[in-house]
């Protein structure tokens, strides 16, 4: 990978990486920092990264960087903590996309991660497993649980007007 390919990666993937991290952490400033850090790591690793691997490298680097930050701030929630977060989000959501995002925000970070990589970025289960350092079976289970939880949230009449 060379300088031109790196700059093309900025054009193609910066928005996606930012959206992915922004969806996970809900903090624009943190998402900008993590995105910038991911591209800095890509630049530093430039000779060793193939052009077609840049996207996965960026998402994986950004995700693990965010996990490090959240763990340091003790905000990382395990997958099993979904129930404890239920009901944490309140408010009126009139737009379907807003409802979905509100439902997404209720999920554990790991479920949000795999779901966004699947729905936003259209990654395969195997690629998501590579990015998140999970097994493919874990990825499928987390995505399934995330969808079930979001469906239940969408069908709760008190969440939607």
């Amino acid at each position: 990978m060379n300088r031109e390919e790196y700059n093309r990666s900025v054009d193609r993937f910066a928005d996606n990486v930012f959206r992915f991290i922004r969806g996970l952490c809900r903090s624009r400033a943190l998402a900008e920092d993590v995105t910038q850090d991911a591209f800095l790591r890509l630049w530093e690793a430039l000779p060793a990264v193939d052009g077609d691997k840049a996207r996965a490298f960026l998402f994986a680097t950004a995700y693990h960087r965010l996990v490090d930050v959240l763990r340091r701030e003790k905000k990382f929630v395990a997958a099993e903590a979904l129930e404890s977060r239920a009901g944490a989000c309140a408010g009126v959501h009139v737009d379907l996309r807003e409802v979905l995002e509100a439902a997404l925000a209720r999920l554990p970070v790991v479920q949000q991660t795999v779901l966004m990589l699947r729905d936003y970025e259209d990654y395969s289960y195997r690629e998501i497993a590579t990015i998140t350092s999970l097994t493919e079976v874990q990825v499928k289970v987390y995505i399934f649980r995330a969808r079930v939880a979001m469906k239940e949230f969408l069908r709760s009449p008190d969440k939607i007007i």
Partner: protein
Amino acid sequence: MITKENYEQHALDYLDDTLDAATRADFDAFARLHPEVAAELEGLEEARLHPRPVAYGGKGRLYRRAPRRRWWVATGTAAAALLAWALIPRGEAEPAGEVVERTRLAAAAGIVWQAERPVHRDVAPVAVHRDAAPATRAVGRPAGALSSRPTEPPVAAMDAPEGLLAAVVGEGLPARLSPRPLPPAPAAAPGRESAVLALSAELLLDNGVVSAAITLLELGSEIAGEARRRLASSWTRIKNNLPL
């Protein structure tokens, strides 16, 4: 075999219709036995996220551009340096041949070996008094072993510049060692030219014009003093810091 414990890992493949026929039949059988699982699977497509267009505003900080060469600044700097170099007044340059001839040491024809006897090394050396004794008296030889002809002072043939003689015999040259007078010094101090060279090289380096800086530094390779130290610093920058 699909069970309550492992059905989740097959559920997405079931919905995506990517299970093989045997596993799909197992899953269907399992779902019929567990209506709550069948209800779970129903309507999961509603829970698909729709990406919101998001623009990252910091792209400008992410791009990596090749180091730009501000050639117009560097060219102007180089032109100014060369103009200053040309405008500095300097004295007439002495032809190289004359310098060689003027600094050539000639053999002292008046010095003869008069003693027939061998030199006795156990004799105490005689101190040389440069202010009184002839400069041709050899250190460590017996007095009188060497003598010079009075009609032809031997040191007169040692026609050398003042600086060279001072370096050889030290201070207090005898009166007969008066060298030929040097031509007048150049009108401009060499340090000024050196400073211009050093400053120009630094400006060129600051603007990324390495080749022109190297040329200037080569021009100034003979200079000394503070300017030489600055030029050495510029060389170090070229070798260590610039992405050549």
